[in-house]
């Protein structure tokens, strides 16, 4: 406010009271309101409102093409006795935990490798990101072909090496299908984790490692007591995103198995799509989708409090 007052008195020689309109034009709140308008409208109409509508729909018996009535907790009641729903919950948890852990471990390892001096480093780093660039569905289709029950290149290779005698039914057997989809998800997620952690690693001063080395620290100790503490905040953020997107994954499963065989790979997202859009039971689908929210909140909370603790340890102003 003060700077605009100064600006006006500098540019205008004669002093006069600013009109109401001029005052409004330089009012921060008024300007801020209009600058935020497009964002607020778009996010309000297509994000905040649907979020509440989704929760509301889960308490109704809405079908496609028919407005629903309020039925209280009936959808949830129904789901709590539904084996397929619980299967999808356990699948989602398994998928999230295993894939996130693997993404973290391999991603961190890859980031440490990429942080070393080597020729063509920039090119290698660029290549590593490619799985992240290519649309998930399209690479999922490629995996679908790699996992083909008859003409899988993996089965062919393993047969040539003499490790197996019959083709592996990658996507036809429940557990094979689970591991295959988890592998594809890990494959898709590693570049993101690796490149963001690499960015964090590059901020660590080499002087720290040199000092530690002189003090006789081993490679593991340098990682454990220098790299890891400095990386913790960025790890928390990256893993929150990774867990969130893995938990709500839809496209990879839909492109590869559509939840099959016999619902073995259904995640909560794919199940809610199947029930709501294909089956027409919008209310029930919305209930499944709403059931994901507590898990998501838990994941965000864990990383949030982890970050706060970190900040407290490092001093509040230091981030």
């Amino acid at each position, binding site marked *: 406010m003060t*700077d605009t007052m100064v600006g006006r008195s500098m540019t205008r020689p004669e002093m006069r009271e600013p009109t109401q309109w001029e005052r409004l034009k330089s009012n*921060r709140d008024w*300007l*801020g309101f209009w*600058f935020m308008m*497009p964002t607020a409208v*778009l*996010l309000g*109409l*297509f*994000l*905040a409102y*649907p979020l509440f509508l989704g929760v509301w*729909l889960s308490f109704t018996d809405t079908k496609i093409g028919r407005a629903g009535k309020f039925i209280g907790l009936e959808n949830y009641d129904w789901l709590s006795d539904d084996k397929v729903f619980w299967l999808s919950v356990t699948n989602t948890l398994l998928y999230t935990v295993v894939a996130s852990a693997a993404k973290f471990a391999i991603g961190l390892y*890859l980031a*440490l*490798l990429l942080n*070393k001096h*080597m020729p063509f480093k920039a090119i*290698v780093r*660029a*290549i590593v990101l*490619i*799985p992240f*660039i290519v*649309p*998930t*569905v*399209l*690479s999922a289709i*490629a995996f679908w*072909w790699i996992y*083909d029950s*008859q003409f899988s*290149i993996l089965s062919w290779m393993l047969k040539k090496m003499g490790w197996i005698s019959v083709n592996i039914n990658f996507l036809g057997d429940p557990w094979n299908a689970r591991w295959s989809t988890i592998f594809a998800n890990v494959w898709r997620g*590693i570049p*993101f984790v690796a490149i*963001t952690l690499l960015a964090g690693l590059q901020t660590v001063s080499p002087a720290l*490692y040199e000092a530690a*080395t*002189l003090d*006789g620290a081993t*490679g593991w100790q*340098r*990682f454990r007591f220098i*790299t890891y503490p400095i990386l913790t905040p*960025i790890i928390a953020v990256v893993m*929150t*995103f990774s867990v*969130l*997107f893995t938990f*709500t994954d839809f496209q990879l499963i839909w492109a590869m198995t559509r939840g099959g065989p016999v619902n073995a790979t259904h995640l909560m*997202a794919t199940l*809610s799509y199947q029930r*709501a859009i294909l089956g027409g039971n*919008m209310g029930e689908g*919305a209930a499944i*989708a709403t059931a*994901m929210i507590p898990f*998501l909140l838990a994941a965000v909370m864990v990383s949030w409090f982890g970050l706060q603790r970190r900040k407290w340890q490092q001093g509040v102003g230091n981030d």
Partner: protein
Amino acid sequence: MTDVLQSAARVAQPSVAREDNAEGMEFLETWKRRLVFTYLPLGLIVLVLLFPFYWMALTAVKPDEQLLDMETYNPFWTWNPTLKHINKLLFQSNYPKWLWNTMYVATAATALSLFASVLAAYALVRLQFRGAQLVGGLIFLAYLVPPSILFIPLASIIYQYGLIDTPMSLILVYPTILIPFATWLLMGYFKSIPFELEESALMDGATRWQILTKIVLPLAVPGLISAFIFCFTLCWNEFIYALTFISTTGNKTVPVAIVNEFVDGDIYRWGALMAGALVGSLPLVILYTFFVEHYVSAMTGAVKE
């Protein structure tokens, strides 16, 4: 006593040369160690990361008879590549239409999101209106809301607005994914522009709008490019909304069309399918090769904030 000394010496002495992941100390590592502990695992990971694309590209140009016969032909290479699948894709299917749809939706949604994000980011960083902190936090929270829990209610909203099965529905919905990301990214860039520049412009009587368009935006061009590329890629990649809202074949985007239109029952047209996946990925890969650095800064910038 000597025992202790010896073990102490053993701990202290070789640790210097043992292993290392810092720049500047790498002369301590022998090339054999580097080969086994750096290049080998790195090579293996890169191989696994790239193999699906190689396989995709190879399948797209393999003649049909070599596709399924792995005994008479070496499956990892083909000496007589064919453009039959790609040709069929581009001239005898709806593929060009789908590509166009994807491009159109992605460009329009990105442009809309960037417009909104630039205004929002500027207001949040520089106007510091009452409640700016809170609004910034809300926008970050919006980033954490996944499409998978929104598509059902959105489908009914889009239906009520009469937008179902139109590209417009996607253009309006995609910004919910893009704006939070782009706003946070741009906020970082705007913060790095010296405030003194704006102050002196204010002194000279420039309006906020003039400051934004004539000072801030030209200085934030790298950030805008990063945001644009990243948003464009996200749009191209988006699947669940496009799958839910669009039902007419001619209105579909590439990812949805590939999954729904190319898979006809048991006759897996692998050649055409892989050609479709390849052609659908190429525009993004080409864009990416030109702007690698922007891309990386977009990805890491949004996380660092």
